[in-house]
């Protein structure tokens, strides 16, 4: 299980490949990999969004992402879990979060991946501040999934 907070843009597909290549012990064991990539839109609640700053509470964020990953590992039979989440200045089309779950079968990986994103959105202390035109405002709630 790996949880990383990153202050700079990252390529989720490269990160996924790097992580998997570094785990040769998984080869032949996993039959399913479920992935969620959250990417910044250039619109939200009817507004054009030019940029976003993602604030977090570093130690608490890390702690709760690890707790959520551990819970998923207790509820489903998982071989590995990877979470990478951005903080700082983010531009439209930048990936914000990568969640990946490896398991023997899809019946374990799909619900586990869904669990990770839904729990993250309600428990991990991140806050989005969007820039729309000349103004910026704090996003007050998550959009429905």
């Amino acid at each position, binding site marked *: 299980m790996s949880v990383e907070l990153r202050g700079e843009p990252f390529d989720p597909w490269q990160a996924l490949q790097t992580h998997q290549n570094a785990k040769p012990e998984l080869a032949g064991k996993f039959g399913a990999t479920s992935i969620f990539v*959250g990417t910044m839109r250039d619109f939200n609640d009817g507004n054009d969004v030019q940029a976003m700053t*993602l*604030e*977090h*509470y570093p*130690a*608490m*964020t890390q*702690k*709760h992402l690890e707790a959520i990953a551990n819970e998923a590992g207790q509820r489903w039979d998982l071989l590995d879990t990877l979470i990478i*989440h951005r903080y700082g200045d983010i531009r439209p089309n930048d990936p*914000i*979060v990568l969640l990946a779950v490896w398991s023997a079968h899809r019946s374990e990986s799909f619900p586990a991946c869904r669990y990770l*994103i839904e729990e*993250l*959105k*309600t*428990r*991990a*202390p*991140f*806050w*989005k*501040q969007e820039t729309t035109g000349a103004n910026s405002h*704090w*996003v*007050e*709630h*998550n959009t429905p999934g």
Partner: protein
Amino acid sequence: MSITVKFFASLRETIGKADVTLDTDNIATAADVWKIATHHHDRINNMLIAINMEYASLDETVKDGDEVAFFPPVTGG
């Protein structure tokens, strides 16, 4: 006792500070921490509280050395 208090995001801007250390024995709960750290500012709707990085309620007891954080609903992912 000494309590470290943190404010995040819109609450930080509303209160006007990111963190403060309280050195007083007149604190029993997180609600007391809010009152003293914000100089009796009204409570914020939907405000969340964490004590030592675990979610908590305003009536939860705090002790010397605790870190108490106040912040709005989270919007990550």
